[in-house]
């Protein structure tokens, strides 16, 4: 504890010293140091009632400032336009603090971000600047559990804008409900409920200062980059996915190949064991594999899952979830050499005859399923004939009996 405090003091002193060096090196600041001390500043700014002419408070909590990571600095180190001021009170309008004076590399990265671009495109933009995420006088290191950028706190910090309907509307933010989606996801639950430091927050996927639009090839969440981003934690899955038919197609630049979010969604990622997800992912597969889901729905497996039950095979039960290969690939779970053992996962005792069952049989396709095709045609003919004939028979019979009853009534009357 003592050591830690000592290190902090030294760290701050070092930082302050570097400021001094910058100040000395800059020609414009090469004047005698008659600058304001922090005591001078807090002489007024510690007053809780201090306001500007328009009524906005300009009070600074000295204790918080001194506890902040910048607590060892002089006020004028950031508010450089007051460095030479001797007359107090100083003018109300101050220059904007330029964080890049010290944090040049970070600000340079921020300038490449979607937040900075939004501000560049539109001067009235509400897009986040340094202070929106980090605060002003009370900035704490992100390792401090009280910091706005501490791992477990960051989602709430992002949510201040990305969960604010007004800002979402004004900023044309595409995924307006991202906060809700994330908070309900396995990642959000792990972080907010279980307090897991290994659970990803917003920055783990999107980056911190250099967040880029998903359409930007440099973005961590650009389609082709997503597997690596997810794989940062899910390394085993990444390795399987990269080998798979989906992963190789994605790496080859196939625009229709799925990346992780195409099946798992981006923000509302759910546990793969849940019934809802197991059923939903079938539909996800079906958005690309239209024919396969159509034929799947004709089978017992497809009908039971359509009813909302998961005791039967879904896509991944036969094809695997990440290690998916073409059936012609011997690594595939549905390759001829593997299909018996794949069916045996559920149907113990399945043999070579058993696996000749076509789980995607198409009764309309006479080359793939000739027996089924002709049986289906026969059944259709039978149905049409039986209902056609007896429909007619029944209708005529009804008319005949009505006629006879009317005649009898008239006859007896």
């Amino acid at each position, binding site marked *: 504890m003592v050591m830690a405090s000592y290190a902090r003091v030294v760290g701050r002193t070092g930082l302050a010293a570097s400021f001094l060096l910058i100040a000395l090196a800059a020609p414009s600041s090469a004047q005698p140091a008659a600058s304001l001390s922090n005591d001078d500043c807090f002489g007024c700014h510690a007053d809780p009632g201090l306001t500007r002419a328009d009524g906005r408070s300009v009070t600074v909590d000295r204790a918080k400032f001194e506890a902040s990571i910048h607590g060892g600095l002089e006020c004028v180190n950031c508010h450089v336009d007051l460095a030479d001021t001797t007359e107090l009170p100083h003018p109300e309008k101050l220059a904007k603090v330029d964080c890049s004076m010290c944090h040049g590399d970070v600000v340079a990265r921020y300038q490449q971000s979607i937040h900075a671009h939004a501000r560049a495109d539109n001067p009235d933009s509400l897009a986040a600047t340094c202070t929106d995420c980090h605060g002003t006088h009370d900035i704490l290191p992100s390792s401090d559990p009280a910091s706005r950028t501490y791992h477990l706190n960051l989602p709430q910090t992002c949510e201040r804008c990305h969960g604010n309907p007004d800002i979402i509307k004004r900023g044309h933010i595409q995924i307006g409900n991202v906060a809700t989606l994330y908070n309900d996801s396995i990642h959000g639950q792990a972080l907010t409920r279980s307090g897991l430091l290994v659970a990803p927050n917003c920055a783990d996927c999107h980056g911190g200062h250099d967040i880029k639009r998903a359409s930007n090839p440099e973005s961590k969440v650009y389609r082709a980059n997503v597997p690596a981003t997810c794989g940062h934690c899910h390394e085993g899955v990444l390795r399987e996915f990269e080998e798979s038919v989906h992963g190789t197609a994605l790496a080859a630049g196939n625009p229709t190949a799925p990346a992780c979010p195409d099946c798992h969604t981006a923000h509302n990622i759910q546990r793969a064991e849940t019934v809802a997800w197991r059923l939903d992912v079938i539909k996800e597969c079906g958005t690309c594999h239209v024919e396969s889901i159509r034929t799947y*729905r*004709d*089978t*017992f497996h*497809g*009908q*039971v899952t*359509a*009813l*909302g*039950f998961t*005791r039967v095979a879904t896509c991944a039960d036969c094809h695997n979830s990440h290690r998916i290969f073409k059936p012609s690939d011997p690594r595939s779970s549905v390759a001829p050499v593997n299909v018996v053992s794949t069916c045996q996962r559920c*149907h*113990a*005792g*399945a*043999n070579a*005859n*058993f*696996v*000749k*069952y*076509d789980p995607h*049989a198409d*009764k309309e396709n006479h080359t793939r*399923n000739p*027996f*089924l095709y002709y*049986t*289906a045609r026969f*059944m*259709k003919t*039978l*149905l049409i004939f*039986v*209902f056609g004939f*007896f*429909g007619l*028979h*029944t209708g*005529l*019979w*009804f*008319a*005949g*009996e*009505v*006629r006879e*009853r009317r005649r*009898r009534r008239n006859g007896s009357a």
Partner: protein
Amino acid sequence: MTAEPHDVQTGAHGGGDRHVLRFDRYHRLLHVLLMLSFLGLAGTGLPLLFSDTDWAHVVARFWGGFVVAGVLHRTFAVILITVFTLHLWRVLHRLFVEKDLSILWGPASMVPQPRDILELLQHFRWFFGVGPRPRFDHFTYWEKFDYWAVFWGMGIIGGSGLLLWFPVFFAKILPGWMFNVAMLVHGEEALLAVGFIFTIHFFNGHLRPDKFPMDPVIFTGRVSEAEFRHERPDEYERMARAGRFEAQLTTPPSPELVRTGRIIGTTAVTVGLLLVGLILYAVFA
């Protein structure tokens, strides 16, 4: 008097409480079990066939989920297979033990015969009002069609159902594509059976004007003399000529039996028509 003769020309014969036995207890019991299991099979199987509709989800949840519905479906299947076996056993018994060859040909036989075609044509002439009502005997052509349709249906649906129930076992002797075919015919044939029974059979047996709202004969086993003469004049005269008619006379059905029959019958018809409505909704909506 509950067993009132239907609205037929009863003028000369006022014997409204003279009844003939058409179905014995064995027939009636098997038909009740047949109805119960058939309705159960339809109710538990149709949700799967129409799994993409809202009502299928509701019906599946009603049974307590797919696992319970599956167990019930197989239970009803066992009942129906038992009914089928008992029927076959009785047919074989009559044939080989009682040496009763009348079930192979003639009026007491379910085997289609030339007069069935004749009566079908006559019936159509009567539909159009250009001929008299055919003089039916013990079994009419539509009753024979019903019988053989169910017979064929039991073979096809029962056989394919067993295949799908025990796929690993049957895969020892059958090729895998048989399961694809079994899956298809099980559903299509079930649709045919359900559609036929719940519309055509209900109409022929119960819902047509002469019978409406229902004919309780399958539950009471008894048919009044007047209705018998009207419905099956050839059989009536044949029996009268042979002097066997008096021997066939039986007591009128008890009011309790008629009431029970009406309750069971009305319930079955209601459930059946509801299922037909759901099928039509699924197919056309």
